[in-house]
């Protein structure tokens, strides 16, 4: 049986097609999910893709978090369903309190699009198993509200528990506290990050690297091993 990776489309989601493509290239069956539909259609994992859901008008992710599909995603994520939030998806996960902290406007106040270097700080999550611990990768970053903040206690806790999953290398592109680019929940099934692994899955396209593909193969392996 093939592994089904669902990708949610909210009004204003932009990178859903890319995430579906990445899932397909990794060998999974891509399944489009719709924000009004509570049914997750038996997917084995969910990706909340990037974009500007609801225009990001209130706060990035704030409106989407209350959509019907999120009711099920939140419930199942708590039960162990692998969920990856990329960029806007990460923002939705923090708004939904599946991940701690919040995302704010970049400290330089501009949208920024660049090829970003990261270090994989936790290769033990559902989405990072195919990386080496400490591996340095490069994937596109593109956002307006990418500054990760949380209170000191939360940050210390994240560090202590190894839940900082990715850190920015070379430059911190947005003022994120402790250079945090992505985090995981304690169980390791819910991961969120600002950079876009789904844009780095094909040679020649985008930055021309495939450093993002292991996200998708990781979850595939994890699911196959689990079943």
């Amino acid at each position, binding site marked *: 049986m093939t592994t089904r990776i669902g990708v949610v489309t909210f009004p204003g989601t932009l990178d859903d097609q890319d995430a579906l493509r990445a899932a397909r290239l990794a060998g999974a069956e891509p399944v489009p999910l719709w924000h009004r539909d509570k049914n997750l259609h038996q997917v084995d994992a969910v990706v909340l893709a990037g974009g500007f859901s609801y225009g990001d008008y209130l706060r990035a992710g704030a409106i989407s978090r209350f959509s019907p599909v999120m009711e099920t995603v939140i419930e199942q994520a708590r039960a162990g369903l692998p969920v990856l939030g990329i960029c806007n998806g990460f923002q939705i996960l923090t708004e939904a309190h599946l991940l701690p902290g919040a995302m704010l406007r970049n400290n330089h106040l501009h949208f920024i*699009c660049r090829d970003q270097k990261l270090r994989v700080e936790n290769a033990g999550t559902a989405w990072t198993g195919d990386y080496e611990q400490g591996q340095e990768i490069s994937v596109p970053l593109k956002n307006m509200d990418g500054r990760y903040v949380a209170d000191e206690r939360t940050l210390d806790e994240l560090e202590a528990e190894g839940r900082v999953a990715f850190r920015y290398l070379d430059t911190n592109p947005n003022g994120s506290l402790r250079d945090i680019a992505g985090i995981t929940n304690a169980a390791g099934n819910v991961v969120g990050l600002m950079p876009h692994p789904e844009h780095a899955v094909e040679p020649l396209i985008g930055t021309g690297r495939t450093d993002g593909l292991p996200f998708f193969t990781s979850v595939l392996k994890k699911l196959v091993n689990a079943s």
Partner: protein
Amino acid sequence: MTLDTVKHATETPDASQPWKELGLKEDEYARIREILGRRPTGAELAMYSVMWSEHCSYKSSKVHLKQFSEKKPASDAMLVGIGENAGVVDVGQGYAVTFKVESHNHPSYIEPYQGAATGVGGIVRDILAMGARPVAVVDPLRFGAADHPDTKRVLPGVVAGIGGYGNCLGLPNIGGEVVFDACYQGNPLVNAGCIGVMKHEDLHLAKASGPGNKVILYGARTGGDGIGGVSVLASETFDDTKPTKRPAVQVGDPFQEKLLIECTLEVFQEKLVAGIQDLGGAGLSCATSELASAGSGGMRVDLDTVPLRDATLSPEEILMSESQERMCAIVEPQHVDRFMEICEKWDVIATVIGEVTDGERLEIFWHGEQIVDVPPGTVAHEGPTYHRPYERPSWQDALQADDAGALPRPQTSAELREQVLALVSSPNQASKSWITDQYDRFVQGNTVLAQPEDAGVVRIDEETNLGVAMATDGNGRYAKLDPYAGAQLALAEAYRNVAATGAKPLAISDCLNFGSPEDPGVMWQFAEACRGLADGCLELGTPVTGGNVSLYNQTGDTAIHPTPVVAVLGVIDDVTRRTPMAFAEAGQLLYLLGDTAEEFGGSAWSEVVHGHLGGLPPKVDLAREKLLAEILISASRDGMIDAAHDLSDGGVIQALTESCLRGGNGARIVVPEDLDAFTFLFSESAGRAVVAVPRSEELRFTDMCGARGLPATRIGVVDGDTIEVQGEFEIPLAELREAHEATIPAILA
């Protein structure tokens, strides 16, 4: 206030009307009365005035633009030509591409963020209305002097607006231009282009036929935005003393537009629309009259059914409103329910506002009373035509006689080195990444090349790797020296940029930015540029598929440089064969293709070092451009070159700097025997490119150039971490990078 119905207008023939305030001339008003056989109603007057404005009717420009059709080259690629929302070009494998460039100059000066944002929104809807999925945007921009305080107000706002809107739509920005020149101080140019892709069978045209078919307005509610904006903003230079009752500024809602795009593509896919038109300038006046006149002519609209954001709007205002993010579709009755369902799915408001009739008149009603009864063609297409006088300006000869070749040249190697650094760090030649990093170039996952490459390239078919390329160019300095040649140089440069990536140029769109047509000198520039462009397109075999004219770009009596911007579209059969600009591999051989002459008129060097503009622009040789393009395309297809960079403003040294910095490799350069170092490095002769050739391919490549008669001169090798011009100077890449990349952030931070 009583409603000015058709009946009322007939009964009160002598009522005085504000035709003048609406920008109409006396004879135009008389002509409207003649067409209608009575005085127009207020609503009719509003429609005619806005549709007969310069912006909508092209009244000053159309006598010149018609050369684009008359001199159209034979091309199998054209599916739809000038006249529709955008032209459509066949790119093979059953795909068609539609693309266009438009201006939003004046609004962007008043309110940079929203002006630029709605510029992007408008061009994207144009492309969508052809039945295509928008796949990329480009943004040719021009601002006043880089160090002028107002540039700091205008530029960041414009860039944020283009990014804010385009990024939110999920359209990769793959190219454009940023030019600074004092001539654009009070009049920045904000042009925006969009490319869309469709299958041949999905082509949709803006026409309303089939009596009984429903007219559906969908998208945003109609508000008081930009009322009169079209005629006031586009037909006169603005003076902000004029009181405006309604906001002249439109605010964009990119989220709404994203929904509009997805919703529209879905109704296309289910084949639910018989005709479609976007609402841009002149809003409903334009959409209804154009749809009706392109169809069988008859249409009835109940204007009071239009969903409003502001209940106080009068019928005239509703007709003229330029509220953004709206479309108008013609739908057969049996498809209406499904159409509405899809709109509901995407949270898009849709309303049946009327239907196609079997008559020949556009009839508009307000609460049951008729306020418009016109032959739609007279509104949409029979606007006035002006044969404005034009005359070569008296100063043109003196300008051309002021030869840049006579300017003092660097005397020592040290001076040469200094001037190289001055050039690559000057605002116009410096890296624009502070700007372009604010644009998403990755979204949609099909971007093969994007800025700072010579042309943007996007894949349009994942199976076959078919792709399209686009570059936009324009050099107002060249065009000022000689508008005919300047237009051709813009065309040649964009064409060359596309070919440099390995794509075959197919067709062009343009945005013609000029001063006041009421100035015979400006009109001459315009006429010359059109003639040059039409002749050039004929020779290169690239038809003009459509474009845009922006006039009255001036401050007081001073016009901007004539600025024809050309966008060239190309096709590449296999995007994996694309040629990037970076010198990525040490040891590869550098070849200069083409001939270098002493050409400094309008050059970056003359501007940066001497603040000079005079003489003649580089000589145009389109046969040479064609040959160069063929070589670049063959070499890319057959894997003979690993990098290519076209030469344009800044010449050889600018191109070497960009390619070295992008690849992170230096170059050792030898000045060709027949040239002095200065001319070699700074001349801007057209028809040239630099390529990097792997050693294993050298013979094959030079044989090909030799056989086809293209001069190819070996100028050096990719090597080290400096640019060394032997016998002259050496500059470390780190120093070059600092010079090239620090300028723009320093100005704008």
